[in-house]
């Protein structure tokens, strides 16, 4: 799995960080950082949920 965030859409609502804190982090500068663009299998479900729950629909992923 490879995560792609559309930073033109992302508005740092940090929902993804709430669901998958090992993958997504919104820092004090209010920008989202993807900590791991190719997360291990056990995190895939959380990434999928983050993508569906993102209020800006800014997260996509490609199944490798």
């Amino acid at each position, binding site marked *: 799995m490879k995560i792609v965030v559309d930073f033109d859409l992302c508005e740092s*609502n*940090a929902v993804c960080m709430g669901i998958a804190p090992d993958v997504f982090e919104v820092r004090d500068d209010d920008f989202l950082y993807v900590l791991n663009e190719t997360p291990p299998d056990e995190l895939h479900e959380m990434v999928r949920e983050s993508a569906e729950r993102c*209020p800006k*629909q800014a997260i996509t992923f490609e199944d490798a």
Partner: protein
Amino acid sequence: MTRLVVVGASLAGLHAAVAARRAGFEGDISLVGDEPHYPYDRPPLSKNYLAGTIEAEALRLRPAADPAETGVDWELGRTATGFEPSPDGGGTVTLDDGRRLAGDGVVIATGCRVRTLPGTDRLAGVHVIRTLDNATALRAALADGPRRVVVIGCGFIGGEVAATARQAGHDVTIVEAASAPLQRVLDTESGLAVAELHRSHGVEVHLGVGVARLDDADGVVRTVVLDDGTELAADVVVIGIGVVPNTEWLADSGLLLDDGVVTDAYCVAAPGVVAAGDVARWPHRGSGEALTRIEQWDNAVEMGRYVGTRLVHLLTGDGAEEAEPFDPVPWFWSDQYDRKIQLAGAAADGHETVQGTVAEQRFVRLFLDDGGRVTGTLCWNRPRQAILARRLLATGADADEFRQKLA
């Protein structure tokens, strides 16, 4: 178990259908929606879709990205007109084309529609925003050159439309009947900060005054007349004065209707019948078991997922015993200009600001009940703190922990 009928094809209905599939439901799922469009995301309708920076195709909700893959039978452009619960569970939904869809399980997710000002429905130049078609019409009305825009109601939709229109160079006036914006959800000072935000961008804001009438010329709106006699010239009027739940089709169903469909703590309205999203009203533990109806994006997703899973468990008997009541920490956001306003939980009379200041339009505020417990948090351009606060609310942290972690 052969069929689920989901009535309402927006956020809650779609997520209910998808959750039912993921919970192992293998029968047919009918997804009924009264709009002709596949499920789309509504928040951008008052923001970037209205501004013209994204197109309708980009609004499609992720689980419906490829409608053929969603795993449902689409019944779009169809309105449910009646419902007859079955004593065995589920029931039969009647559609406006006369067909009857029987479901072993039924999801009610018909949402809300906008409130309008009596007598203004047929006036040209008067707009509301709820549907994609509404937003497309307003977008077209704002397309050629500066217009005089009067926004009636400064809730989140009104505020966002005003911000979007102002940023596009229109001449914008807001009229709010309450003494401060957003008084249903925020404290007075924070509400006034929203008014100030608009004024600082050159929007004229009238507070504490209602609209007496709209005057027109040949059916085209010309003037908004306020209760104090003020006359506001208008090319475009946008009404954002709240919504009402769509429950008329359930009038003869025998279900309990009271400002929405009333359910138990598990979102169950009758055997095999569940309700989710803006239309559902349930005893929310986080609100002291008070019947609660939440008109928020995230709640629609979460409640939709909950009822979809719950319904399958009820039908199969698997996992039904262990189910927890639906008990979310409500959360919403609003983007106005470059500010992001996020409220988690609920506001209360008591509050303290633990970071930043209202004046600099970047702060974190805690709401406290009489016993000093945190009931909610308001994060104003503080997204990182907003998600932290939501987690603290979910775990029932004490006020000192909020102060420490959010300061």
